[in-house]
């Protein structure tokens, strides 16, 4: 039980937990104390002095230790000078005056000083309209400055801090929120103060500039227009924007976001997304999102999107009507019957996947999930139970991250795991190579490629690590497929599951297995019954394949070959992908921003997203297309509102039982309070009014005892003498269909590059930054060479989704570029 303290703020009695800062106590009581440098997610700095208040504490008689009374009331000893509300901790009987004459004079003085150095850019400033300095000036500032206008401070105005963020040094009020965010929250201290006094300025000290994947968040918490995104630069005025609650579909974290939209002449009068803002969900993404989520939304408005159905006529894909296309697709599937195969990607919503699964079941066909991470069935059994919040983990808890580069694959999980480690949780990182998480880890375990499963099985036998796992109050295990293929990752999942089951860490909150999936809704696909196919190429042979939201041909030439050898290919996509180019029928799908739906995150939290923009051209939502095909086959599939599909889903899939759209839209009060009129406090993150989502019940927490999965014997492929082994790794920024349309990210995506050990490079006569030709799976590609001494010799890291055919560890040949 936390100790409570009662104090009086502006005459109002407030009771808050001991240790609360005065500024937070006031916020909880609904009293505004203006701040610039203080942010509820960071330690106070006391720099801006905006939160000056009058502060008094009961006078204590030194002799007796009792409060001195005056007319029966405790006598208050007032601090001689104004105090900052952000650095003072509440105490019993404290009296705070936030709007007294003295306090107001102090606040006014600070604002006046700030404004003497702040340009009158408000008309063109991207922050104008949602600017804490603007708002606080109106609320607390003097009406008129006593200082001379021509003595205003001038500084550099257009400073690019990397490609994504612009800095205006003149607008900066040196509150240091960005510097502290990067250092304390993101753990990437790439911003700093330079110079001193009036010349103090923000600089970036990384190469490339502002080298952080969380850089966009600094624009949210910047209390002025000093840091703005290049993406939204002069895009619109904030008050002109409409907002729609949504989810980020880039990774399995399921960050809550808000799309800001506007009808735009530049886009031919269409309503388009102008920017992505985080939406608060303290149990998922708090108030942050990563730069990929913030800047990679442009695919939805790409001119390259499919506009209408296509049918292959005389060997050419030609426009067709929906009727024709659907009739043809239905006829092909009907003819195939059991010989049909449905291949779905994790970009689809639960509703889409449910209809696809029902279609497959109706046909008696196989339903395959297109992914390189296995073990989702185990997550279904011993995944996180409801009530889980990564923010609760700390001292005494253990987090294991296995075969996963969390930083690249799920940045916000990385952030939250790092913060848990900062709070004292024991972090164990098990990987074949060094990752960004290592420096926060208590234990780093390396294995030779191929030994991943054996290493995980042996963890409990190690003294300290074994104890850290066994004796953990809570144990979370993240796993993926770093350097592995589907089989390898399935074994890793099984080994991790065994660790959890053996040590009894499952079936309760903050314990369990988390798959770090490549897509937003892979977990949902597993729950609905999709399973990946170890040898997809073989499975495709001779089948009539209905592919939705996946591009196997683009990823792997072997799969392209397999699709050419397959029977009929029906593709449902956003873009004319390599796979779509092989298709008989191409069905243009609506992007998720154009419709409603739900995703199941890797934490097994089902969350809703809402339509942000109108549907593009003649597209239809995926579940509608599937339903209309199904109806042609005489199946009873729902093509109405997604909520109706979801109702059927909850009725049929046990894990979803009891859920409804209404339940998913429920919200609870969250701390800190953000997104209301008081933007100065938490930043421009949106308040969550549209739903925090609901955890699926893990089978284990429902009392079902999980079965110990069998771990595949033997090991994965190992590097051979004289030959390099290419292992697939995931990069945050890649050429995936949902990323490559964002021009701004091009520099961060870069050219395809392989990473090898310096010794290997020396042997081959290659240098860092040089170009080389690699031969992989019978294909030649030109790549850049990067060096990394933490990876094992004989191994080359090859990024997925960068146009290189790497779906599994495979031999690689490297030669000089032509």
């Amino acid at each position, binding site marked *: 039980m936390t100790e409570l303290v009662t104090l009086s703020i502006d005459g109002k009695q407030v009771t808050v937990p001991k240790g609360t800062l005065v500024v937070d106590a006031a916020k909880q009581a609904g009293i505004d104390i203006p701040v610039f440098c203080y942010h509820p997610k960071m330690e106070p700095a006391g720099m801006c002095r905006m939160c000056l208040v009058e502060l008094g504490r009961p006078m204590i008689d030194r002799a007796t230790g009792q409060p001195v009374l005056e007319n029966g009331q405790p006598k208050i000893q007032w601090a001689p000078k104004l105090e900052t509300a952000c650095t003072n901790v509440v105490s019993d009987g404290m009296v705070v005056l936030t709007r007294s004459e003295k306090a107001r004079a102090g606040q006014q003085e600070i604002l006046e*000083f*700030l404004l*003497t150095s702040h340009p009158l850019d408000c008309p063109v400033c991207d922050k104008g309209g949602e600017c804490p300095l603007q708002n606080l000036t109106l609320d607390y500032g003097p009406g008129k400055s006593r200082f001379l206008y021509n003595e205003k401070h001038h500084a550099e105005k257009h400073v690019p801090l990397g490609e994504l963020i612009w800095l205006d040094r003149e607008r900066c009020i040196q509150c240091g929120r960005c510097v502290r965010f990067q250092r304390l929250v993101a753990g990437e201290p790439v911003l700093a103060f330079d110079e001193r*006094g009036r*010349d103090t300025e923000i600089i970036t000290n990384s190469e490339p500039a502002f080298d952080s994947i969380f850089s966009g968040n600094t624009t949210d918490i910047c209390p002025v227009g000093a840091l703005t995104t290049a993406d939204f630069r002069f895009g619109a005025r904030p008050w002109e924007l409409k907002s729609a609650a949504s989810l980020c579909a880039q990774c399995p974290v399921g960050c809550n976001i808000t799309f800001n939209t506007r009808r735009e002449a530049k886009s031919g009068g269409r309503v388009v997304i102008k920017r992505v803002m985080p939406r608060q969900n303290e149990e998922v993404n708090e108030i942050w999102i990563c730069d990929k989520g913030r800047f990679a939304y442009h695919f939805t408005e790409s001119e390259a999107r499919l506009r209408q159905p296509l049918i292959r006529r005389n060997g050419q894909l030609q426009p067709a009507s929906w009727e024709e296309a659907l009739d043809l697709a239905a006829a092909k599937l009907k003819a195939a019957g059991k010989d049909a195969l449905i291949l779905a990607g994790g970009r689809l919503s639960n509703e889409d996947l449910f209809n696809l699964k029902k279609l497959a079941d109706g046909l008696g066909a196989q339903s395959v999930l297109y992914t390189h991470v296995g073990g989702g069935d185990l997550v279904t059994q011993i995944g996180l139970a409801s009530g889980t919040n990564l923010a609760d983990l700390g001292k005494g808890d253990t987090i294991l991250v296995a075969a996963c580069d969390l930083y690249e694959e799920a940045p916000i999980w990385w952030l939250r795991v790092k913060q848990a480690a900062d709070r004292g949780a024991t972090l164990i990182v098990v990987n074949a190579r060094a990752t960004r998480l290592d420096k926060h880890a208590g234990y780093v375990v390396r294995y030779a490629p191929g030994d991943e499963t054996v290493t995980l099985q042996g963890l409990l036998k190690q003294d300290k690590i074994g104890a850290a796992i066994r004796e953990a109050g809570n144990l979370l295990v993240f796993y993926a497929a770093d350097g592995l293929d589907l089989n390898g990752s399935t074994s890793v999942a099984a080994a991790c599951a065994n660790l959890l089951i053996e040590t009894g860490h499952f079936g309760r909150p903050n314990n369990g297995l988390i798959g770090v999936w490549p897509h937003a809704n892979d977990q949902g696909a597993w729950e609905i019954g999709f399973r990946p196919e170890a040898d997809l190429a073989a499975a495709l042979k001779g089948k009539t394949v209905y592919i939705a939201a996946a591009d196997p041909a683009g990823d792997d030439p072997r799969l392209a070959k397999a699709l050419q050898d397959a029977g009929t290919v029906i593709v449902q996509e956003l873009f004319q992908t390599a796979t779509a180019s092989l298709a008989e029928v191409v069905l243009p799908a609506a992007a998720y921003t154009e419709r409603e739906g739900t995703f199941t995150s890797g934490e097994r939290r089902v969350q809703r997203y809402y339509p942000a923009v109108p549907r593009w051209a003649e597209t239809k939502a995926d579940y509608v297309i599937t339903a209309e095909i199904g109806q042609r086959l005489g199946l009873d599939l729902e093509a109405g509102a997604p909520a109706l599909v979801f109702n059927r889903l909850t009725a049929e899939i046990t894990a979803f039982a009891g859920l409804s759209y209404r339940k998913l839209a429920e919200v609870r009060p969250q701390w800190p309070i953000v997104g209301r009129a008081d933007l100065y406090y938490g930043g421009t993150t949106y308040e969550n009014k549209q739903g925090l989502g609901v955890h699926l019940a893990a089978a284990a927490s429902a009392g079902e005892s999980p079965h110990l999965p069998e771990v595949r014997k033997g090991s994965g492929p190992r590097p051979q003498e004289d030959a390099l082994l290419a292992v697939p790794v995931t990069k945050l920024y890649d050429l995936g269909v949902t990323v490559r349309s964002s021009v701004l990210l091009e520099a961060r995506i870069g050219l395809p590059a392989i990473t090898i050990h310096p010794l290997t490079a020396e042997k081959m006569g290659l240098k860092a930054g040089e170009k080389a030709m690699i031969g992989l799976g019978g294909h030649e590609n030109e790549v850049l060479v990067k060096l990394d001494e933490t990876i094992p010799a004989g191994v080359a890291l090859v990024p997925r989704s960068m146009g290189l055919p790497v779906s599994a560890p495979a031999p690689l040949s490297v030669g000089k570029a032509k």
Partner: protein
Amino acid sequence: MSTFEPVLTRNTRRPDSEKIATYLANGGYQATRMALKMQPDEIIEMVKRSGLRGRGGAGFPAGVKWGFMPKDAPQKIVAVNTDEGEPGTFKDREIVERDPHSVIEGVIIAAYAVGANRAYVYIRGEFFLGVKRWIKAIADAYEHGFLGKDILGSGFNLDMSVHRGAGAYICGEETAMLESLEGKPGNPRLKPPYPAQTGLFGLPTLVHNIETLACIPHIIERGAEWFAGIGTAESKGPKIFSVSGHVNRPGNYELPLGVSLREIIYEHAGGIRNGRALKAVIPGGASTPMLPADQIDVPMAFETLKAIGSELGTGAVIVMDESTCMVQAARRLTKFFAHESCGQCTPCRLGSTRLYEILDRIERGQGKKGDLELLLETVQGIDGTTFCPMGAALVNPARSAIRHFRDEFESHLANKRCPVNGR
């Protein structure tokens, strides 16, 4: 002229005074031998009884500060402040250049008393000779067994090293100095926690000015009562006064606390140069409020100066004669502070510049009606709202100049020229 037998500067006039041989030959390190045989608590008690107050500017009782150091912490640090950034002050420089061993002795005793095994010296980067002397003195002290493991067979260990600053005034503030010692920009820290709880590298740290430390061996050797016998009721002991400005003999003068400002200026420093009349005195370094000529009978002690609205500060007496334009004096002093603001907090970063701009335009004869009121309001806005005590310090030149010489400011505003020098 009253005579005072020098205590802190007793060695500084000797040839080769900085050498350990000279120091030892004149009774050096006797206090260390004595102290290491005493109980740490005994020493703290003794320092408390002596009434020694910090010589760095704030005048905090040294013994009380020692008492704040946690007893049970496994690692503690003594940080020695030789930053001496206060304009007008040059006493620490003399001590460190001419008698560094007296400070080392003070450090050893203080470290022994509070249970610290590590001492860091922070010295102003521009003190090139001082740095050399510090390094040599520490090396010699190691060689003679006064530093290092098992000092003089007492079982007490102390390591000491010197670190140079990069030239920021604010690094004289104890927490900014600690930041700078840690290799970070010299910005003051939030207090609490105070250095005695969380100081250098997060460890309990005792921070002292070197003049304070130089007093310690004498207290040990001659007793707390002897020390307390010098000075006034609340200000005990000898003090080095750095006299500069329009006097005939500027320099360091060691005198007992409580000596009158008049005696320092007219007897020791030889009076005002060129036979001019005294106009104003800054009694304790640039950050302390100046006094007009008719207040120089004040005894130089913490409590007496405070009573008339000034401070003892570092005891750096800056003398200004009748040819001085007070607007110019205030402007120059304020420019220094505006330049030295660390930039961390708003009122100091921006307010100091604004203050300077207003003073500058008044001096140039471009002042506007209401500027004097604006000046005082700006002073009000800075004093008491800043992060560290620098805000309260930086407004002193302007505020005290207006308090005592308002007519001069008004004359500048009304006649657009200086009443003193005619420009």
